[in-house]
């Protein structure tokens, strides 16, 4: 029991604020992915390396916040949201940053040239996936407004609409991903087989960025279920 009054020791750092803080850092990480691919396509090895470093740093920072948040969530906390839901959202958010790190890491270890026909659709896919993450982060920013309203009412309806938009954009990225994969397999004969598999893996990962972001939004639907 702290020396300050009994009453005030009841109040703990809101996990919702920590969740928002974590998402902001994850977004800083993800926003480096389009420039990463630009550098890759331009063949700028130095720029690529420096962006890859930035991604790694942001991912480490996100991990730190994640661990702090987990440490600050004892079972004795009474919250307007289920503890498990919070931890799941946290994990999904963190997976976005982890995936960005995987992408940067793989391209660093196995430098590959982007095939000509794949350049434009790949850039398009990357940007659209980051859009999905952006929308997801906007939804997470609404958490304090949701709290103000008790996760009901107008704010909840507004958030649901935002999640609808999120689902739509994610569907687009699914299409773009399939298109890109089709183009990849169309020219697999002319490519190093290992590279084909690596590119396939990378396209999956880029799509995962959007997938995880969508899952975050879907979890929020659960929170606002009326």
């Amino acid at each position, binding site marked *: *029991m702290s020396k300050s*009054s009994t009453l005030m020791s*009841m*109040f*703990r*750092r*809101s996990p919702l604020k920590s969740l928002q803080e974590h998402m902001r850092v994850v977004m800083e990480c993800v926003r480096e992915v389009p420039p990463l691919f630009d550098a890759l396509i331009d063949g700028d090895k130095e720029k690529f390396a420096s962006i890859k470093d930035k991604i790694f740093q942001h991912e480490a920072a996100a991990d730190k916040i994640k661990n702090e948040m987990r440490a600050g969530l004892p079972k004795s906390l009474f*919250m*307007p949201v289920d503890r498990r839901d919070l931890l799941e959202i946290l994990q999904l958010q963190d997976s976005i940053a982890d995936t960005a790190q995987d992408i940067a890491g793989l391209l660093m270890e196995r430098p590959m040239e982007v095939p000509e026909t794949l350049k434009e659709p790949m850039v398009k896919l990357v940007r659209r996936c980051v859009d999905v993450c952006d929308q997801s982060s906007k939804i997470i920013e609404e958490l304090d407004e949701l709290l103000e309203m*008790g996760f009901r009412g107008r704010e909840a309806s507004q958030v649901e609409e935002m999640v609808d938009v999120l689902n739509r954009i994610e569907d687009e990225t699914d299409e773009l991903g399939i298109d890109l994969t089709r183009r990849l397999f169309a020219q697999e004969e002319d490519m190093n087989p290992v590279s084909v598999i690596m590119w396939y893996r990378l396209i999956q990962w880029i799509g995962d960025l959007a997938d995880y972001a969508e899952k975050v939004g879907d979890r929020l639907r659960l929170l606002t279920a009326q």
Partner: protein
Amino acid sequence: MDIITVYGTAFLVMAIIFGTYMCWGIGANDVANAMGTSVGSGAITVMQAIIIAAIFEFAGAFLAGGHVTATIRKGIIDPTPIMNNPELLVYGMLAALLAAGIWLMIASSRGWPVSTTHSIVGAIVGFTMAGIGVDAVQWGKITQIVASWVVSPVLGGTIAFLLMISIRKLILNTDKPFLNAKKWGPAYVFLVGFIISLVTMFKGLKHLKLELSVGMSFVLAVVVGLIIAAIGWALINKVKVDETADRDFHFASVEKVFTPMMLFTACAMAFAHGSNDVANGIGPLAAVVSIVQTGGEVAQKAALPIWVLLLGGAGIVVGLATMGYRVMKTIGTKITELTPSRGYCATLAAATTVVLASRTGLPVSTTHIAVGAVIGVGLARGVGAIDLRVIGSIVLSWIVTLPIGGVLAALFFFTFKGIFG
């Protein structure tokens, strides 16, 4: 009878010293809990809290402290077994004050949460059981009191919950929350003034010889409520929309409207706390005064002397001004999880419950009620994270404080008996 005549003055002096010390302790330690929600939400500064507390704790003690004081003074012990030995009651009350005061000092210095109410009630029951007899305790009254210790936090929580729901419905969950906040704000301020006045002045203030019929009480309460609502309206009108803050948090400006409203609930809470807790110090004092001044009459039919109330109020204020300041500084003025609208609900709910208890003469723990109120807000999904381990520490303090208060008081009782005969 002889003992009273011989040592009367000594008893009086001791009672005044111990009683004032107890009140000083209440001001130094307990007021922080009463003002906590107001300071923590950032609505008032620590300095403002001290000033508000100084004025309204005193007012609450003086205007509304009579009923609980009567309970502590003569409601817990059956006077018949000690008719012929009034000095036993004197020893006991002195012992109770000393025990409660020392326990308060020990616990506070270690940062343990302690209820001044539980301490004194436990002490009184303790010395009565040990020194006079188990049958001398009015067990019916004690059952009522203990029941109120359980019911009052629940009541506080329920009121807070309902207030939150109403605020969501009328203000937050609307098209124009800011405008609705300005529209309904004065009504919520009216509520503060009305409730406190009504409960306090219902059927009059006996010790101030003010008689009021039920109807008059209502009318007076409405008038007070309207006056306070008018002041609130003036303050609320000054609040302007803060566009930059709103971009970060859409409801920032709405919350700003609640800040002046919290000024009033802070006053209400200080008033309520004073009305209930002053009795912990002056109840026993009043008992001793009555016995000494009547030369040994135990029935205590005499009215509560005004100077005792004044002394109690002053003691609380001095305790607040000397040490309470330091304790309040540790609260932290910006617990961001406690926004003004939440603070308003929790504080008004707690103040209402305490003042109701004071009116019905039931000594309750202000801190426990405040905790109940905050949990009520949490149940309405209004607070980010509440650590329920605080409930564990409260239960622990029950288990520890009641027996320790009782045992200490019994010890001192026998000490006094040994000294004075």
